[in-house]
């Protein structure tokens, strides 16, 4: 069956969905201007573009959430118009959103058939639900999931499988996946790759939206690039390299993504001496002023646990922490802030921002909470602050939930700069952020280090970690596995992270 699926250059691939000249405006602002998209059965088609390029809007048009102002949607040679998501579902189009549409406290089968429960003699036919769910899981080769398990008990990767099964059970022929790896641990990404390929081989058309170029090149056979709501190009993946794609997306060559390492490390700002708690143990390392120290490790290795411990959410129970040479006990976020520690959390929407509050209120959140008497100077300062992080918003009163991921992250950074921390911990600083904004954030972090801040950077994107860090600490199962110098290669990091000592036999 793998033979039949279309690749670039095939003569008669089966077109499943065709979008032609899709236009859509919100409040007079054009978001999509004449976008074309052609999806074939059994292909993985990447859709790339910066945040704000119109990818999500296009997905929503495809899913029947938004109606296009003009343009045609053709499904298997018949023009259609979707009034509701239900219509799109009926036409065989399903979207796997970044945020899962699963009910945590219902079972796998109940979620898969939500809204379409089979009924037999007035009752929901639970047996049929479970059998069919199991059949679909088997079909995908995912037999580790029980249809009767409560979804809350599944790992993120398995929830994603359930999400996909839910789409397939509605007889989806087209699956649009929006940043499917955003929530996954590194080792789960490979599993997703396998799943995507199996879906493709079974004739499903997959529209794969991602910021991660490696995934795009690993998986897709064709790439469609959007920029500022307009269609730029659609080319076979084999004919392109990463640089070319980025150039199409940004519209200009992206000179050196990572800023040069200019700073000279100064005095030790924060020092851990044998620190540990339930999640991590025996940590001893320093971060100096002017230094960006990368913290690598697999998901669950204790990377983020270190951050949360230093910041006092789950404090260290053993060992000591010294700030500027003074032994310090951080018992909670409030003390951390007062001692000059900032923490850019990996969960931007959940912990980093008050989404329904304005840019201004978010930026000043920490300062208002931690400082006295600064209120008078806030207004003048705010403009400077927002300017220094380069937030693009309609104004300080815009609610942050309407900003793009990149701009949201800049607001989070601004929030910390408002209290001028000595130590800044950043956890996945560019997750869900487009390439252009990434570059700005990198520049910003480097400038902060140059100003004498000590930065501890956690990231699961190795290129980023290696590109930014002056040194890299690698975690493995709650302990430090080793330290690598700037510019170490990915294999060295992974070797430590997976517990293979350099030179040791696996």
């Amino acid at each position, binding site marked *: 069956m793998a033979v039949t699926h279309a690749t670039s250059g095939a003569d008669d691939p089966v077109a499943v969905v065709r979008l032609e000249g899709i236009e859509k405006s919100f409040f007079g602002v054009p978001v999509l201007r004449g976008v074309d998209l052609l999806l074939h059965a059994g292909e993985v088609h990447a859709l790339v573009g910066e945040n704000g390029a119109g990818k999500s809007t296009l997905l929503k048009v495809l899913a029947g959430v938004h109606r296009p102002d003009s343009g045609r949607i053709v499904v298997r040679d018949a023009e259609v118009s979707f009034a509701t998501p239900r219509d799109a*579902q009926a036409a065989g189009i399903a979207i796997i959103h970044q945020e899962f*549409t699963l009910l945590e406290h*219902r079972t796998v089968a109940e979620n898969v058939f939500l809204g379409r429960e089979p009924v037999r003699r007035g009752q929901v036919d639970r047996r049929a639900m479970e059998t069919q769910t199991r059949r679909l899981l088997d079909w995908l080769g995912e037999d580790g999931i029980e249809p009767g398990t*409560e979804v809350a008990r599944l790992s993120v990767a398995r929830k994603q499988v359930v999400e996909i099964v839910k789409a397939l059970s509605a007889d989806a022929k087209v699956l649009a996946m929006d940043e499917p790896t955003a929530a996954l641990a590194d080792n789960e990404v490979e599993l997703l790759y396998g799943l995507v390929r199996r879906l493709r081989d079974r004739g499903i058309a997959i529209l794969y939206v991602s910021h991660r170029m490696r995934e795009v090149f690993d998986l897709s056979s064709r790439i469609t690039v959007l920029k500022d709501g307009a269609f730029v190009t659609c080319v076979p993946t084999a004919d392109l390299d990463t640089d070319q794609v980025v150039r199409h997306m940004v519209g200009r060559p992206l000179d050196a993504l990572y800023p040069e390492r200019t700073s000279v490390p100064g005095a030790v700002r924060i020092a851990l001496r044998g620190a540990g708690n339930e999640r991590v143990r025996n940590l001893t390392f320093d971060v100096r002023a002017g230094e960006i120290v990368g913290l690598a490790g697999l998901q*669950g290795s204790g990377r983020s646990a270190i951050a949360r411990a230093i910041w006092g959410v789950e404090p260290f129970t053993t060992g000591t922490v010294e700030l500027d040479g003074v032994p310090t006990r951080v018992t909670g976020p409030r003390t951390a802030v007062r001692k000059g520690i900032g923490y850019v959390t990996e969960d931007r929407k959940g912990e980093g921002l008050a989404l329904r509050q304005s840019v201004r209120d978010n930026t000043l959140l920490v300062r208002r909470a931690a400082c006295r008497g600064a209120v008078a100077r806030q207004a003048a300062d705010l403009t400077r602050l927002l300017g220094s992080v380069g937030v693009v918003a309609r104004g300080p009163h815009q609610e942050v939930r309407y900003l793009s991921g990149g701009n949201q992250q800049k607001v989070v950074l601004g929030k910390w700069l408002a209290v001028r921390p000595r130590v800044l911990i950043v956890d996945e600083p560019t997750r869900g952020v487009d390439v252009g904004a990434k570059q700005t954030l990198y520049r910003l972090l480097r400038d902060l280090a140059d100003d004498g801040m000590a930065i501890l950077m956690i990231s699961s994107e190795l290129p980023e970690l290696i590109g930014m860090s002056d040194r890299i600490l690698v975690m493995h199962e709650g302990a430090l596995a080793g330290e690598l110098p700037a510019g170490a290669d990915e294999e060295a990091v992974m070797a430590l992270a997976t517990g293979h000592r350099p030179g040791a036999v696996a």
Partner: protein
Amino acid sequence: MSAVREQVRRRSEAPARTRTFVITPVLVVYLALAVLLVVGSVLVGVQGGVLLDHGGILNILTRGTVLGLVAIGQTLVIVTGSLDLSVAYLVGLCSLVAAETMAGSPAMIVPGVLAALVVAAVVGLVNGLVITVLKANAFIATLGVALVLRGYLEHNYTGPAGSVPRAFQHIGYDRIGPVPVAALLMLLLAAAAWWYLRRTRTGYHMYAVGGDVDVARLSGVRTGRTIVTAHVLCAVMAGLAGVFLAGRLGSGAPYVGTDAGYDLESIAAVVLGGTALAGGRGGVAGTIGGVLILSTLDTIFDDLEMDSFFKDVVRGVVLIVAVALYARRRPARRST
């Protein structure tokens, strides 16, 4: 992946079959009820009385009947992620509608009951539509409807009105042994509501809407319709409670529902029964346990001739402890 992590994962993703060993809220509620009955029996026994004699059982079940009816309905709306604060006035209103329609005539029993239930359904419909169409918060919406009902009752009634024929009063007093027929009817309705929530599509959708209304909508559930259905059913249950009370009192009484505080009391019973106030989890079985705990507490207090202020304190403490326990049960959702 390391062996440790694999192990952790296996444990946390154990198939559903092993869950029979997990302590569910429903089990906790009935265990608590059993403990309460034992402790209560001892306390009452020390004072020379018997808690679970003929009169005691009758007392517990009779108290539980009306609250049970209201709380079953309240469970439906709370599972759906909503709330109904208008039930107390609705109970009074329906008792009046039933008693005034019957006006002492046995021939009017059926029309009286139907009239009360229709009025209740209409009020529930209004509740549901205000929430879904006007997008008012359920708390405010049903509080508003409650105020409207209160205004109507205060303007038109000063005391009991209408008259229930003797034949219908039987419903309030007939019993089989120590078990009132009405209590059996209430339990029957509880079973029906359980089946409805656990076995029908609408029931499934109620859990879905209460669990996450956006997820439900994106999955093709007609969320508005589901919420309205829950409110209508809740109101009808309150209506039944009103009809039953009319039968017991022999007439309709405008404040019979509010005097007993059925609005907050029913919510308390639901929460005590392990249903999440935010919706999406819980069910009728727990609610009935909650109702029985509350009515048993009252009966114990009566037997001990306890000060009524102290009663309220104990009830409050029980409620808070229960909710705190459920909050503790909730597994940490944080993943590193």
